[in-house]
């Protein structure tokens, strides 16, 4: 659901910043799905101490989501840098107005 909201924002919004925000919403959706896939009902955290016992929650998705978040941050940074450059040169970040610019 969140994924579709993000996708809709990327397609329908004309403001570039809003497109990037849509992208972030979409990324969050995927991360949320991925991180919940490691959950097991009634499981302990996967750290071995005297107090915890099997079943353990799967730690792998958390590691993957963490990597994914790093990727997403880098992506957002590059996108925003590009938008800054576009704004500096054209004075606008609306797609409709950019299309008219040569």
């Amino acid at each position, binding site marked *: 659901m969140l*994924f579709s909201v993000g*996708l809709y924002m*990327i397609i329908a919004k004309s403001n*570039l910043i809003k*497109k990037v925000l849509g*992208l972030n919403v*979409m*990324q969050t959706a*995927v991360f949320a*799905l*991925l991180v919940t*896939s490691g959950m097991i009902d009634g499981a302990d955290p996967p750290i071995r101490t005297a107090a915890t016992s099997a079943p353990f929650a*799967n730690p792998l*998705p958390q590691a*993957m989501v963490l*990597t*994914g978040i790093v*990727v997403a941050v*880098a*992506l957002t940074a*590059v*996108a925003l840098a*590009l*938008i800054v*450059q*576009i704004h*500096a*040169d*054209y004075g606008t970040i609306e797609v409709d107005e*950019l299309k008219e*610019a040569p």
Partner: protein
Amino acid sequence: MTWGDALPWLVALPWTGAVATLALGARGPRVAGGLAWIVLIATTALAVGPVLEVARHGPFSYALGGWPAPYGVELRFDHFSAWVLPLALLFVLIVPFSWRYLEGTIPHERQAPFYALLLLNAGAMIGFTISADLFNLFVFMEVVSLSSYALVAIAGRGLAAWAALKYLLIGAVASMLMLLGVTFVFVLTGSVNLADVTARLAAGVDPVPAATAIALLATSFLVKAALFPLHVWLPDAHAIAPSPVSAVLSGMVVKIGIVGLIRLYQLAYGSAAFEMAGVNMLLVWVGAIAIVMGAFLAMVQNDIKLMLAYSTISNVGYIVMGLALASPYAAIGGVAHVFNHALIKVTLFLAAGALIHATGFRTLTDLSGVARAMPYTAATMAIGAISIVGLPPTAGFVCKWYIALGAFQARQAGFGFALVFGALLIFVYYVRMLNALYFKPALHDAVRNATEVPWSMRAPMLLAALACLVMGVLGGVPLSFVEPAVLDMLPAWGP
């Protein structure tokens, strides 16, 4: 010490080089460019060993951190991974070409980051080719994509940034589709290791989510490969980037999608959990349409780099059609075309870059008659052009011949004709280009009095053109890698 231990270094070497290039970049772009070149030569030399090993003894793998698969992260070098050698080798040609090319096009302080990004890109593509893990494929694909976005934007100001941002938005959506697909696979099978996933899918899973996962992954890879309806980001990005970058993007980065698709095929065929016939039929049609549409769009372009960019779309159509026809000959041709197209497109883009560098013009009209002033560059362009059309003594011929044979073998003769028709269209626009370069009178004094580019640009270009010719004669060498891998992959087709 086995060759498996060398695998992490294939990625680590260019990436360490990227950091070093950035650090030493303060001493000037010459240092950075030289260092990047040395690192890439070392990487190429390192890639020779694993390639020979896989030719002799077959695939081998390396478990990162000592954790055996399926628990740890695995790097696997199989016959398809032999692609890393030509990949690294083409980078070795592209870097010296960039030395002089960049002087006129990129601000001084951005040149060291340019080489660093190039190395990052090369390392990530090698990593993508040798990783045996769906999640690692995602991570490497992201590094490739991110460095590509930055490379597109590096030269110019607003226009380049706008092209890069369009590329970024579409590429990022594709990446998220891929991660969603990986999530589905993970939830279904509890594993992301390719071999393990294949085994677990074969053991039987719910077909609907599994098919959704495959569809998500395939869509994502096809966006990255710029197959026809998903190609909209490609022409702008490839035409606006500096020419060496266009060569990298068009020749290699697009192929990342194809390599991903090949991995997906291995997974789907290996597990036999899916009926791939429907998907294949769809891809064959889309591929055929891409060939013709790409060629048509290329035909009407006047800008030489836009033309080459559309020609890439057409050639991706060939590769996908070859893979999806799923008969041995077609698939072999398709996979071999991954390599040959990279070689040809690098040749063409380097030559186009040389023309633009020397004259300052980029449309065919403006460039007409340039062959008299720049005979070497024009000759390179001509060799590249006849290769991509697929005339016999060149690299392009072997794969197109195989794909056409495969179309007949799969009893889909119609697609064989689509291929020939596409080749004819391609022929038309390259003839138009050669006609302009060689036989039309020059319009501008700058073209008439153009001087040939310096040797640091001429040599890589001519070497690449020579390789196009040599690979036409020695076409069996890439095929000897492709053939066992493809026959392993395809089900139901006996020897």
